[in-house]
């Protein structure tokens, strides 16, 4: 980066000017707004949503459609990664000490993930946090030399990766089919449906993140891991 280039000076100056404008806009947006935005409305309707954690209510009920498609984005990324070539060479098998540590950490991560999934209904937590922990478990396994990061072979991995989105979409379509409208949960079933969707999503997110970390097409042969 040569600083003698006039561009090198011009761009920061320009960006600074834009920054000032944006800040002005942000300030006037904050001060000019009288109401509550969506907060009050959302908080008020949380009890009907089937989850007592407001963020979960928004994610899996009020704006569930966004979340459904976000899972699709995740799947698209994984499919894209697979289409770009085979996975990287596996890491060297970990030493005995590290290996036994991994044997400890991975079950802990899985249990923690399960806890986050369950608690998401009432407190911060939920499918994404839980899925991230499962993914982390996979990453740990991969780093310690398991070539498949604890994931099943391609056929089952495909099912696992698509499962969460599939459950989500099928529930949405079924609700439309019975006349309630796409993704419109009946209040009585909302809690159960949300939990079902979150469970599927957690598994898929975990599997997808771990598979993405491997960085390529899964191996054809099934390589079961303990």
């Amino acid at each position, binding site marked *: 980066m040569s600083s003698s280039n006039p561009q090198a000076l011009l761009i920061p100056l320009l960006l600074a000017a834009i920054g000032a404008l944006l800040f002005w806009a942000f300030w006037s947006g904050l001060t*000019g707004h009288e109401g509550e935005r969506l907060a009050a409305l959302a908080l008020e309707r949380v009890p009907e949503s089937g989850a007592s954690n407001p963020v979960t209510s928004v994610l899996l009920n009020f704006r*569930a*459609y966004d979340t459904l498609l976000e899972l699709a984005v995740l*799947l698209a990324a994984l499919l894209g990664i697979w*289409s770009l070539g085979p996975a990287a060479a596996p890491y060297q098998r970990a030493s005995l000490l590290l290996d036994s540590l991994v044997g400890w950490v991975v079950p802990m991560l899985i249990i923690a993930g399960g806890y986050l999934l369950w608690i998401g209904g009432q407190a911060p937590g939920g499918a994404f946090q839980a899925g991230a922990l499962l993914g982390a478990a996979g990453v740990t396994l991969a780093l310690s030399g398991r070539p498949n990061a604890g994931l099943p072979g391609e056929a089952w991995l495909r099912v696992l990766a*698509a499962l969460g989105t*599939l459950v989500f979409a099928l529930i949405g379509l079924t609700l439309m089919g019975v006349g309630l*409208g796409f993704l419109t949960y009946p209040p009585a079933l909302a809690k159960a449906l949300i939990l079902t969707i979150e469970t599927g999503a957690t598994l898929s997110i975990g599997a997808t993140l771990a598979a993405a970390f491997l960085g390529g097409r899964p191996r054809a042969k099934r390589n079961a891991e303990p």
Partner: protein
Amino acid sequence: MLDPLALAVALPLLGALLVTMLPGWSRTLGMLTALATTGVALWLTVTVWSGEGLRSDLGGWGVPLGIGLRADGLAAALVAMANLVALAISINATGYFGAAESSRKFWPLWLLLWTALNGLFLAADLFNLYVMLELLGLSAAALGALTGTREAAEANLRYLLVGLLGSMTYLLGVALLYTAYGVLDLELVAEALTPGPVAWSALALMIGGLLLKSALFPLHFWLPPAHANAPAPVSAALSALVVKAAVYLVLRLWLDLFDGIATLPAAMLLGLLGAGAVLWGSWRALRAERLKLLAAYSTVAQIGYLFLFLPLLTAAPDGDTRERLLTALVLLALTHGFAKAGFFLAAGLVQKSTGHDRIRELGGAAQSLPAATFTIGLAGVALIGLPPSGTFFAKWVLVGQAIALGQWWWALVAMAGTLLAAAYVFRVLARAFNREPTPKCFLTDPRTEIPALLLAALSALAVGLAAQPIAVLLGAGV
């Protein structure tokens, strides 16, 4: 109670999930999904055409808490075009990819892309649009790299990054709008929006981000390599539909959200960039050595035409003039969608049968593939703007209104673009006339040729003459 809006998004998504899980069945399941989705899309269009705008509140919460989907005439017109083109691309792909490994990679990503397209055209929520843009961008970049060459990977990585830059910029605009107005539904924001720093910043950020994605000159640099190096069916989708989706959003925001905020000088600026795109894109198409690169630069130019309409739309008084301009604009967009998809599919055929697509060496190939050559010819008619293609009538309105509104310079640009387009199209077609032996039959591989030919024929012969129903569709709805 079936909801065509939700189905148009959910069906291709469901198909994508199924073909992900059952890759061995991908062609069958993929084609079934394609047929069902197109059916739903046409049902949706006919419903809007017959006078009801469609709107549905997902989750039953209603705005502003929930997310809405809606279809007015503009959305329905593009949905119909996109789904017909996507169906043709699907049929072509069954032949193009065959049962090879690449077919397994193609189908799930392709159906996800389709999901994103329908979702984007029907979205009524500003943040949901961001998610759709990302789904579109990711699946498009992954599809574009399916050829497996290094050039393709390089070009599509650039495409992915530029797309991300565009959508991040767009998202900051959405964040500002939420800060000031506290809602995300497009119509609600539009009602509340008043001129001021927030509106101007959001306009600049959102439109700017989308311009990057719609490859408006001089932000087009990523498009030609990405579109030219993808597998032909994917190139067709990228050029005909994906870029069009971004342009649609620009238009949607310009007309619905920022109506009254977007000033004439701003529109003039976009028109100017459009003019640059027409001239520069056509010129580069004329100089391109490869058929697919020619088609890609032609897309840059054709996108430019769409932006020539913005200063006219902004300057036009409400009512009749505006409606005619909008009809012409949509006519142009639809025609280009059909034409460019047909063109790319035919180019793919040529490339497959000769092993390359260098224009100078095409000679015999062009003559021995009459169906592909005809496809390129018909699509060429639409790209140049010869009658009876929709482009011709669209340009008729464009030039007429440019003169009537005192902005005659756009007419000059449009005419120069026409001549350049004629030059680059006939540069290819001239290769079809030589002393090679006569081909025995018109079709050589019906499954790949017929979809391409039908798309091109639609663009050159049908869309333009169907201007009136399209005008009715646009006048209907919300």
